[in-house]
């Protein structure tokens, strides 16, 4: 089994399953904080999916987008934490 087939038929489906599981927590999450945690994990998993995809399509520039996505995820988490701290909203 070649690397491309392995990544395409095993790794990517497992990552997609993880995204679905995290998204159920995003929908269920009883409080705003739970949704922010799952949002952060969604972004992180997205970085992994982009990395695997850059191997499959043989396109290294995708990694730049992964870096920017990690940055945006961190900024989003910090901004939401600041929002929770200022408004005292659960």
């Amino acid at each position, binding site marked *: 089994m070649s690397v491309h087939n392995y990544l395409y038929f095993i790794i990517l489906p497992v990552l997609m399953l993880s995204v679905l599981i995290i998204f159920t927590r995003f929908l269920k999450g009883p409080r705003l*904080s739970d949704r922010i945690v799952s949002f952060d994990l969604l972004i992180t998993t997205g970085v992994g999916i982009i990395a695997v995809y850059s191997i499959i399509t043989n396109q290294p520039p995708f990694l730049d987008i992964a870096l920017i996505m990690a940055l945006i995820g961190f900024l989003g988490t910090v901004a939401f*934490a600041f929002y929770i701290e200022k408004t005292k909203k659960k």
Partner: protein
Amino acid sequence: MTDALIIGFSSLGTLFIFLAAVGVLRMPDLYLRISVTTKAATLGISLVLIAVAIYFDDLSITTRVSAIVVFMFLTAPVGAHMLGRASYFAGVQLWVKTRHDDLKGKYTPNHHLHSKEEVDRDEEEALK
């Protein structure tokens, strides 16, 4: 050989990401969920990115990959700590079976930046 390394690293990384996903769904408490997110997912992403670096075998891509890994390792604990701190002060409850809470009684709801003794001292000084 290279193929085996790529398959091994990407499988391990994906396994950790999947475990983080299951943990974030199954853990009973916000703080336990934060703990899962910041450890397992960071390790998983790092392993997947190492697989990418092995696949391309190029100095510029290895530099990019290590930049992403270092960035994740630096920012994940910071973001998790900020979120946990803000949630604690906003009054998110701990799990019912939590054994002990180190921050209990040390902070007052409205002066959460100081300890309770400091708030009492400030109020006494204001009365004088």
